[in-house]
């Protein structure tokens, strides 16, 4: 298979798709003011080609912050795209669509990936999608777009998740998640007094969450929102750690970028040697896949900011390009199988 990436910093879709012929799947990453226009134009240019889209920045070796980017798969790929609607209340209502697509594609664990762009209620969406994917052990990589809307097959859908099933006819597929944080000290908390709808974390080990965070890190209330770059929370799920960023302070509670539930076991994280972690991820991919056709990734906006502030973003993209054609989306939240995480990178590697 092949991966195409094109971008236009000035938001010209035709410029972005220049040279793209016979795609099997197109992924659109647009900006909030031109999204509808880009979706329409794309459908006109490539009718009947499965596509998904969202509002968000994209990259290959450079970042398109406010333009438009296209990632497409062609040659030796079978794909299907669709949406689950009403994600804020009942995405399960549309699950048959996904089941039918999986069936039609002949999806299998080894060669198929599900890529999703979500408009919100991510944890619920991932639970819902996972009920269908888990039966075939299909992995998922995706992220959250901006403005509460996505596109699929030339149509805009508010309050929805757009998904694409991609079957690699020329080899294997594998999903990865990269965590540049490590556990800090021996702090471990049980969350309580949570509000899952508003992503509120009320108490940790029975004490107000804000006070716990401040007492450990000795930061003012104002500093909490920037401190999360260095010290987010990690939700423990067996051997996995899902990063949770702090969004806001609400009274004595902390509002997060991800749902926190009563009985969630959390740890405090600290920034690790992220350059080393990136190198390790690349080494692991090299080891798993001596020959790679493409890599599609979703990087958190927080990582983008952190890497940019530290003058590392360009170097990071250059390093990732050593894997071969690499492109991706800067998301507001990242999806890895049934996990909704923050401040992470997820990617799918095509053999």
């Amino acid at each position, binding site marked *: 298979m092949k991966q195409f990436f094109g971008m236009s910093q000035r938001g010209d879709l035709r410029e972005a798709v220049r040279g793209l012929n016979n795609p099997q799947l197109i992924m659109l990453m647009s900006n909030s003011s031109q999204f509808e226009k880009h979706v329409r134009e794309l459908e006109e240019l490539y009718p009947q080609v499965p596509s998904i889209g969202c509002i968000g920045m994209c990259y290959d070796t450079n970042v398109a912050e406010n333009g438009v980017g296209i990632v497409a798969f062609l040659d030796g790929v079978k794909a299907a795209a669709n949406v689950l609607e*009403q994600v804020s*209340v*009942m*995405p*399960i*209502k549309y699950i048959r669509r996904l089941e039918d697509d999986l069936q039609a594609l002949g999806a299998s664990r080894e060669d198929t990936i599900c890529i999703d762009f979500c408009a919100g209620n991510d*944890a*619920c969406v991932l*639970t*819902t999608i*996972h*009920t269908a994917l888990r039966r075939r052990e299909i992995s998922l990589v995706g992220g959250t777009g901006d403005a509460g809307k996505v596109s699929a097959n030339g149509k805009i859908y508010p309050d929805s998740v757009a998904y694409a099933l991609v079957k690699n006819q020329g080899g294997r597929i594998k999903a990865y998640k990269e965590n540049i944080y490590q556990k800090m000290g021996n702090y*471990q908390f*049980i969350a*309580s007094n949570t509000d*899952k709808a508003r992503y509120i974390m009320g108490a940790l*080990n*029975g004490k107000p969450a804000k006070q716990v965070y401040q007492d450990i890190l000795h930061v003012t209330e104002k500093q909490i929102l920037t401190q999360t770059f260095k010290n987010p929370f990690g*939700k*423990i*799920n*067996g*051997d996995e750690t899902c990063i949770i960023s702090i969004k806001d302070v609400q009274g004595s509670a902390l509002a997060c970028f991800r*749902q926190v*539930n*009563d*009985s*969630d*076991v959390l740890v405090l994280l600290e920034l690790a040697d992220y350059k080393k972690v990136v190198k390790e991820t690349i080494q692991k991919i090299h080891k798993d896949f001596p020959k790679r056709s493409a890599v599609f990734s979703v990087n958190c906006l927080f990582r983008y900011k952190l890497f940019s502030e530290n003058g590392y973003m360009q170097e990071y993209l250059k390093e990732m390009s050593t894997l071969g054609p690499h492109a991706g989306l800067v998301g507001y939240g990242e999806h890895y199988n*049934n996990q909704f995480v923050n401040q992470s990178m997820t990617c799918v590697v095509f053999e």
Partner: protein
Amino acid sequence: MLFRKEHKQTDKKRERQEKDLYPVLYVTDSLKHYHTDLVQKEVASLWELSLVGSSFNSVLGEAEQFQQKLEDLGANFFSVHEVSEQFVTVRDDISHSVEQAQDEVETLKNSSLEVESHFSEMGTTFAELRDSVEQIKQRMSRIVSIADQTNILAINASIEAARAGEKGKGFAVVATEVKKLADEIKDLAAEVDSGLKDVEQGANNLSDKIDTSKEALGQSLDKVQETYEMFDKISQAAEGATLVHSQISEVIGSSRSALETLCGFFDKIKEQYQEVVKHIGRASRLGTTKSAMFEDIDNLLSQISPIIKE
């Protein structure tokens, strides 16, 4: 009219559907409550588990500290054993020194005996000297006696020479000279006698001194003997240190063996502790996966009601 009838029928159908679906909604609502209760219980369980974990970690810490103390004690035993081993070294040093000293004393004793033997020889020599002096004295008195007789003869000769008158004048001179010689011999004999007396006196004094020295030497030899006995006592005392060392070693050996049993017991307990820690960790990890499943259940349950209501 027909529309109103259809509308009425639709309302009735909806009412019937709502009535039919009410049990599902009821069950869903109940399940949600159970889910909430379950999560509350899970929070309490996890909290308890974390308390068990932290308490057990304290126990583990205490046990490790105790084991460390036991190991320190073992090390102390080793130090005591090492120090006690120095007794043997000290004993060896003492024995070595005693042997050296005994050798020195032996040499001293031999030298003293040699001196004693020399003193005896000197005593014999002095006795011989005294005999010789006595003989000289006797000979000297003989010489004096001869000189006296010669003197008498010289006097007689002088008298006879005087009687002979002029003819005897020359003879009188000779007689006078003989008398002088006899007197000189007597004087010389008296001087020799006096010298001999000095020699005799000196020899006696020396002999007395040698006797005194012999007596002192005898006392020294007694002291040497006493020293020998003292050294034996020191050697015996040093051997006592060896005995103390072997007794200490024995006690330390049995203590160390008891300590090893105790440490072995702790090692065994430690293995079991590690097992408990492993199980607590596993239970905690399982707890964390449960919270993810609760989230999934909640995410799915929360969708039922809106679907039915729609």
